[in-house]
């Protein structure tokens, strides 16, 4: 089964001088040579050519990255970072290939996926990776409603793309990965409701 049929002529091409900001979704192969910001959801293959810049959370069937991607990548089949790739963000896919020369920072999650070197046509559960990797983060936390940004920043990132990316770029700026700032106080269990929590940034 061809993961990416590059030669299917009808595929979409985003040329080098084009900037798209917003949401792209679709059911065909996409080649990016320009710039895409926002979100990208494809049920087919994504190719980011050298020169292409994607600042988006990407979900696709498979992805071959030769350009720049800042954002989390989730693929049903495979993600390949070629020697020209520069990627910051988490990758979730059953098969992840990183070639020599690729620049990458982020987490890789290949877990819970049908690891078949040659994916069979009967890929019965294409959704499986998605379910497994969606971390068991309690969407409904404890008793008290906690605003969504509150959960500890240590939380597994794949489902919280924006903070992960932000943090990743911060780390890059500082040259070395540093542990994220002290995690906010864990959600207070109902009962200790009167306690006032002051979070102060240390100079």
């Amino acid at each position, binding site marked *: 089964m061809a993961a990416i049929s590059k030669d299917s002529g009808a595929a979409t091409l985003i*040329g080098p001088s084009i900037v*798209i900001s917003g949401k792209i979704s679709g059911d065909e192969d996409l080649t990016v040579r320009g710039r895409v910001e926002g979100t990208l959801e494809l049920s087919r293959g994504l190719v980011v050519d050298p020169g292409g810049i994607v600042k988006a959370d990407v979900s696709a069937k498979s992805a071959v990255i030769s350009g720049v991607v800042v954002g989390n990548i989730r693929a049903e089949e495979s993600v390949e970072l070629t020697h020209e790739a520069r990627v910051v963000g988490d990758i979730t896919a059953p098969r992840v290939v990183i070639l020599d020369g690729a620049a990458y920072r982020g987490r890789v999650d290949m877990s819970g996926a049908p690891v078949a070197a040659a994916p069979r046509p009967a890929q019965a559960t294409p959704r499986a990776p998605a379910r497994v990797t969606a971390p068991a983060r309690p969407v409904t936390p404890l008793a008290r409603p906690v605003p969504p940004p509150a959960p500890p920043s240590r939380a597994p990132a794949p489902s919280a793309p924006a903070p992960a990316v932000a943090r990743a770029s911060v780390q890059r700026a500082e040259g070395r990965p540093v542990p994220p700032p002290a995690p906010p106080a864990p959600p207070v269990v109902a009962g200790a409701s009167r306690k006032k929590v002051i979070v102060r940034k240390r100079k």
Partner: protein
Amino acid sequence: MANTVIGPDLVIDGEISGDESLVIQGTVKGRIALQEKVSVDGAAVVEADVDARAVEVSGRLTGNIQASERVELRGECRVVGDIRAPRILIADGANFKGSVDMDVKER
């Protein structure tokens, strides 16, 4: 010249800008601002304001069109919106609702 093609099964919701020609066969919502030509093919659906050098519509377009050179509405197209361009062609069979303004200086 390299063309950007938005294929028939693709949906873009947002803004497209750049300076190369763009062929739309799929669906685009939002805004399109190019310094080149925009072609809206027969099966395409565009709900966007379009600002380009030239615009050629064979599909469906809802939104205002502004072109510095020309706008061409081909037969079979369905366009709702206002058009501003120095040269505007509307072919037989085109379906158009909106106002036309050719009182624009050719840039």
